[in-house]
């Protein structure tokens, strides 16, 4: 049996004056490895007041982003063994208001996402009868962008987003912004760029790359942001 100690952030605004860390222990068979989410579910069996979000439990829905030993990630696809420690500290995603325990209020994150108009805009007066065709090359440009599951691990690890969550779009939103900027079927490129060309939306990214470091889907928001900056700068000069 391997014994793990969990220190979990607890805060229930209805009864607690302040957040606190609560210690739990969990024993795992020697030949067994659990995901952090499975461990949390076992802890919840012992202490039903422990709250967290989850749904797909396979890294697809983006519900269970949290800070695990100081690094944002999805609990459902993080092996206990990968943490290389029998002490595990679990906190909610940093920077967002806590609703309860590991559950954060994602409104600011979604507002930024909404701002970049995450849908195809095409002003073609005579839409094709069946579908808008793309060449394989045009389609390939969307790879590494469309896979984002909006888990918010990236934006909540970004200092620029912590300081200006109302004005800086953040890595997740910008990844999506670029996904539509380079889509050959989208005709609103100029309008989209106009809306991003202030001192905050894009240019608050200073290339710290925390976002790349944590993305559980292995995406690279910094690269997409670099492309957006180039598009904005080539218009400006």
């Amino acid at each position: 049996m391997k014994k793990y100690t969990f220190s979990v952030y607890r805060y229930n605004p209805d009864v607690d004056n302040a957040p606190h860390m609560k210690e739990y222990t969990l024993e795992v068979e020697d030949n067994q490895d659990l995901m952090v989410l499975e461990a949390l579910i076992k802890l919840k069996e012992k202490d039903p007041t422990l709250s967290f979000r989850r749904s797909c439990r396979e890294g697809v829905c983006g519900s269970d982003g949290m800070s695990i030993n100081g690094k944002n990630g999805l609990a459902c696809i993080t092996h206990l063994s990968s943490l290389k420690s029998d002490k595990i500290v679990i906190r909610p995603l940093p920077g967002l208001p806590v609703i309860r325990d590991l559950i954060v209020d994602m409104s600011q994150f979604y507002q930024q996402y909404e701002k970049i108009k995450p849908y195809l805009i095409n002003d073609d007066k005579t839409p094709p009868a069946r579908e808008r065709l793309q060449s394989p090359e045009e389609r390939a440009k969307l790879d590494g962008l469309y896979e984002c599951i909006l888990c918010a691990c990236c934006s909540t690890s970004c200092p620029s987003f912590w300081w200006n969550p109302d004005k800086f779009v953040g890595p997740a939103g910008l990844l999506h912004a670029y996904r539509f900027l380079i889509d050959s079927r989208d005709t609103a490129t100029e309008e989209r760029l106009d809306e991003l060309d202030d001192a905050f939306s894009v240019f608050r990214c200073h290339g710290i790359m925390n976002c790349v470091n944590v993305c559980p889907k292995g995406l690279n928001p910094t690269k997409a942001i670099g492309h957006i900056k180039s598009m904005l700068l080539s218009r400006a000069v």
Partner: protein
Amino acid sequence: MVKAAGTFGRSGSHDYILLRASSVVIFLFTLFMIGFFASTANVTYEIWSGLFSNLWMKVFTLLTLTAVLIHGWIGIWQVLTDYVKATGVRAFIQFLFSVGLIVVWLAGLFVLWGV
């Protein structure tokens, strides 16, 4: 909502370009100064004032001071809008820095004028 107010440039990309361009000028001036001190064993008053009596050196120096003004203005504004959330306090600190930067620029102008 802090938008363009306080920034030097007209837009995010304009700010970005000003920041990079001014840093290139400051870098070149720094390189030049390092080169000057490395190649001049004994910097006397004559050599020093002789250097600054050249028109090109006056222009180069004033250009660099202008770059410092722009770079500092935008840079301070960016740092303050990250870390100082109270608008009044931020405006006051920005005011101090902006005045300071302009004073440095003017002082430089009159010093160069006098050489």
